[in-house]
């Protein structure tokens, strides 16, 4: 792609607040005129990224270029960008007209020009005749329109929108989404939009950038992101999905939920552990024994307006979510199949917990800032070691008196027959846990690992 198609280019951008790294080596470009959405859960770093583009924050490392020019050190009031803020940030002492005129007046635009542009932009946001109103007398939706008008009247090169619809109710939000899309089409300005609402992102965007824990997980068109998520986080965050452990038997053949399936993926190697994503609308019911790949018992069935959402237990004991236009009663035995093209196979990001640690004494090893008991045969105190612990060998306790250390549950993924949890320990590191117990996000848990489940290998010393 030609360089001049890129209006914004971001390279190796990092930012930390204190010890916490909020953005880690972000590389991203924005095409001229596109609607790009930064999507991620709260605290993922998306707003920080937007604020650095606007100039309210300075990056620790990395470069942002606008139209090929490095904008480092340029203060926000000199950047040809405008922002629509969360909760509008209108000036309460000015009326609608003066709010919108604020930027133009600072730039010494002639009065009649200001007048003409304000009328035009008020028409665009469907707020004509509101010029003299006090902004505090307007409803949330109206204030949001004025905030958008105040930004676009300056004809910025890029419009930055920081969760602009988050404060509106559902109905208003849906209407504003359509209007925003329409405005983007009419204006031809590049939009960078921040949201945590995946549905909003799918509806509005030309490009979605999924961010989690300060890193870009995936960037692509809404269809790409939905159909081909690159990891289990994206698959879980965008839309509904069944995420399952599987094994790639050989090219184009994958095994999961206790059955072998044909698929279209290759190049993973043989007998390779993988994650498999099946969208709930991609599991089909059939009457034919030859077509059926496995059977299941319907556990529950709920009408969702257009389709039915069913949970089934498969013949090998896995739980799957299925969406279909036909309803199957709870208790019913059903035959199911999945088409090869609908199976999304992803490389596993990790297969077990590994930490760098050190042997502190005979039978004692330190990692996660904690001493654990285990067999240290073959190692001497002071040795640096690589510690491995299988996901399902980590015990979570609801009290901390028997626990070696404690942590908070950060992320929960259901994998058909067990939960895969991400737990942030006291030392700030992560430990991944497979469990059948039900925990909630942000639960405070005790962490225990039995001595026999800790495996040590010699750490290769560098130099």
């Amino acid at each position, binding site marked *: 792609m030609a360089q001049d198609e890129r209006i914004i280019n971001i390279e190796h951008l990092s930012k930390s607040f204190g010890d916490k790294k909020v953005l880690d080596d972000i590389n991203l470009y924005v095409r001229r005129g596109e609607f790009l959405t930064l999507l991620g859960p709260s605290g993922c770093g998306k707003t920080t990224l937007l604020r650095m583009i606007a100039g309210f924050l300075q990056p620790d490392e990395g470069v942002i270029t606008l139209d090929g020019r490095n904008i480092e050190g340029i203060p926000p*009031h*000199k950047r040809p*960008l405008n922002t629509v*803020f*969360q909760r*509008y940030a209108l000036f309460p*002492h000015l009326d609608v007209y003066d709010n919108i005129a*604020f930027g133009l007046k*600072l730039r010494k635009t002639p009065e009649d020009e200001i007048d003409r542009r304000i009328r035009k932009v008020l028409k665009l946001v469907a707020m004509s005749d509101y010029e003299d109103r006090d902004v505090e007398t307007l409803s949330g939706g109206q204030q949001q329109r004025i905030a958008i008008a105040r*930004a676009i009247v300056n004809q910025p090169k890029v419009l930055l929108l920081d969760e602009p619809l988050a404060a509106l109710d559902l109905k208003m939000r849906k209407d504003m989404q359509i209007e925003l899309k329409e405005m983007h089409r009419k204006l031809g300005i590049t939009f960078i939009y921040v949201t945590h609402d995946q549905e909003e992102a799918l509806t509005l965007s030309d490009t979605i950038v999924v961010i989690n824990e300060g890193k870009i997980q995936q960037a692509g068109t809404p269809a790409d992101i939905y159909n081909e998520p690159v990891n289990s986080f994206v698959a879980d965050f965008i839309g509904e999905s069944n995420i399952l452990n599987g094994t790639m038997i050989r090219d184009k053949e994958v095994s999961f939920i206790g059955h072998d399936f044909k698929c279209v993926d290759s190049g993973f190697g043989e007998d390779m552990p993988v994650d498999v994503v099946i969208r709930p609308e991609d599991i089909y019911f059939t009457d034919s024994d030859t077509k059926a790949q496995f059977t299941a018992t319907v556990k529950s069935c709920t009408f969702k307006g257009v389709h039915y959402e069913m949970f089934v237990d498969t013949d090998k004991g896995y739980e799957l979510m299925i969406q279909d236009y036909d309803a199957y009663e709870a208790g019913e035995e059903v035959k199911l199949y999945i088409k090869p093209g609908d199976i999304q196979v992803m490389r596993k990001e990790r297969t077990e917990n590994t930490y760098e640690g050190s042997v502190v004494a005979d039978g004692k090893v330190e990692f996660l800032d904690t001493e654990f008991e285990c067999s240290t045969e073959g190692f001497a105190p002071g040795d640096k070691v690589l510690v491995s612990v299988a996901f399902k060998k980590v015990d979570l306790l609801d009290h901390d008196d028997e626990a070696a250390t404690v942590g908070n549950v950060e992320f929960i993924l259901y994998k058909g027959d067990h939960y895969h949890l991400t737990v942030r320990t006291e030392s700030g590191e992560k430990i991944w846990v497979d469990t059948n117990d039900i925990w909630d996000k942000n639960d405070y848990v005790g962490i225990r690992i039995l001595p026999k489940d800790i495996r040590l290998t010699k750490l290769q010393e560098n130099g």
Partner: protein
Amino acid sequence: MKASRVISKAYLWLVLIILYAPIAFIAVFSFTEAKSLGNWTGFSTALYRNLFTGSMQNSSALLSALENTLLIALIASLVATMLGTVAAIGIFNLKGKKKATMNFLNNIPMINPDIITGVSLFLLFVFLHISQGYTTVILAHITFCTPYVVLNVLPKLSQLNPNIYEAALDLGATPMQALRKVLVPALRPGMISGFILSFTMSLDDFAVTFFTRGTIGLDTLSTYIYADARKGGLTPELKPLMTIIFLIILAVLLIINMRQSKSSDKQ
């Protein structure tokens, strides 16, 4: 039921009478010519006439004390308003422990007895070899007024949309323009009430002025009245003066209250 209502009403009136009787007393006796307080020698506006024409004994001293008082109050409360507003913005943008500490430090001078503030400022000025007079009194008044401005501006800041300053920058305002065109207008009600409070605090201050005015014979109204009363009886013309000051303050308070109820109606 009825009896208890009568009692509660009577109680209210009793409290009001006790509160306002001294002021009413001075106001009433400002309309008679008697030299000694409490003697009614018939209605007269002679004291008012004396006050405005200056045909009374020591009138120049009284008028210069009044002038000093107003000038000191005006300068001190203007400076305190500016300092206090900037300080409030700073404190507001602090986080956690630092913010709590600064708030605490801001509150101490307000609870600190005036006499201690006065003596410690006196010692400070002596220590720094600053010759005492007009400047030291103004500095001292700024010192004890600023916390009140901070206290009045802080709540306005927390009502403000946190992005409003950035929104101004985003629209092309320099930091100074953003402060002048957006932040100050939004904080203006708090700054005005901080200014008025500072002004009245400065007007009626005695202890701090007494210790920081030095020996050049600088008098404000409070120190003048104190000296005057000790010399043997109040100058009769002080009664109409106090009545006028009271009425002015009453008017200012009424205006503030009306403005506040108007702005809360708007919301």
